[in-house]
């Protein structure tokens, strides 16, 4: 057996399984003879166990859809050009599937009160709208002129595949968007403006507690939110438009968002 002096360096090697097998016995004897080194080794062993425990759960988490999509070459960046061509038809189909959307927008009228998570989403969306829609020069972080980047960036941050809906048929042009906090997560806000300067915003988050839909207004004469929550996402369209017009805009926006999410 080769005799040599061990040092602290050997503690790391032993811990990492890099100490040659034939030195192991001599090393263990050295550790026994050096209580200080033995204590140090024990602390490192404990730290390693704590490190492993701290990250062990990650392996059991479901793989996020966007990562699977990345492997199949369907990433937001590269696919955006393709998607922009076919989502219009997909959107039309989605609206059909949703069916009577205008019906429940008109039918369900909840002003205040009710389920917490939906109110929370609507309240956050309205608060964001009140603050940023009023800003003339600093309403958005990324302008519509940089739409591709806007969509990619917000998609990555929010964790949903976001497509800024085309609302020109409803008279609205995209102004741009920004990233906002929402509960424990993040939300994307997309701002639109019509020819008269009237603004509406779309608020989309990957957080959602359950399935529901409805309209919400924090104050009787304040902006109103039309919202949907489903498994894995929630979205709200906020504006101070007449009820019918807001419903029509929301329906179009929702159909396109849904088609984008599913693409």
């Amino acid at each position, binding site marked *: 057996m080769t005799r040599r002096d061990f040092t602290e360096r050997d503690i790391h090697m032993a811990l990492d399984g890099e100490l040659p097998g034939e030195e192991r016995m001599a090393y263990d004897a050295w550790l026994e003879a050096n209580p200080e080194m033995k204590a140090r080794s024990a602390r*490192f062993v404990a730290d390693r166990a704590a490190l492993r425990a701290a990250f062990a759960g990650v392996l059991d988490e479901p793989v996020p859809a966007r990562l699977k999509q990345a492997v199949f070459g369907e990433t937001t960046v590269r696919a955006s050009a393709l998607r922009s061509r076919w989502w219009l038809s997909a959107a039309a189909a989605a609206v059909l599937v949703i069916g009577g959307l205008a019906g429940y927008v008109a039918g369900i009228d909840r002003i205040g009160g009710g389920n917490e998570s939906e109110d929370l989403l609507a309240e956050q969306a309205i608060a964001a709208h009140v603050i940023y829609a009023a800003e003339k020069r600093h309403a958005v972080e990324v302008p519509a002129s940089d739409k591709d980047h806007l969509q990619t960036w917000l998609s990555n941050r929010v964790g949903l595949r976001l497509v800024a809906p085309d609302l020109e048929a409803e008279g609205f042009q995209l102004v741009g968007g920004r990233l906002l906090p929402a509960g424990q997560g993040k939300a994307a806000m997309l701002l639109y403006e019509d020819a008269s300067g009237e603004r509406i915003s779309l608020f989309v988050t990957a957080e959602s507690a359950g399935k529901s839909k409805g309209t919400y207004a924090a104050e009787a004469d304040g902006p109103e939110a039309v919202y949907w929550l489903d498994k894995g996402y929630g979205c709200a369209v906020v504006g101070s438009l007449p009820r019918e017009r807001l419903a029509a805009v929301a329906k179009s926006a929702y159909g396109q968002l849904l088609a984008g999410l599913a693409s």
Partner: protein
Amino acid sequence: MDEKKAAILGEIPRLRRYARSLLRDRDSADDLVQDCLERALVRLDNWQTGESPRRWLFTIMHHLFIDQMRKVNRRGEAAMLPLEAGEAQAAPADQVESIASREIIDALQAISPDRRAALVMVAIEGFSYAEAANILGVPAGTLMSRIARGREELRGLLDDTARRRSIRIVEK
């Protein structure tokens, strides 16, 4: 399905764990993994048959991480500020962390990125020194000193945290 893609898909949980240990924030970590996967797909032809997909992907991700850290440093952003345990950054709601886990995760974020990567690669991911040195692109001696210093730094930070905690208790 393409065999290579299937192999890559199977490595995602490990890549996510490594990314999380490097970056802590779940979204940023997944962004890093996504960047890694996108780059890997572009370079699919560079991946030699027989080469472990894990080593290949970890190498790609490590380069992306180091590039990102350098950019952050150049811009002089305070992205690497050590966090007061459990105070500066709330854990995501769905990620239940014990106090011990949170302390060690915070401490890990506070050590230098090079040491963090070396330590995690060996202590959590279970790579040998030779494999880790290869992935990180450094000589074995450099790797060993990063691991040793990383471990000592980590322990020092945990000792500090424990000391601060006991001071707080005394003050009450």
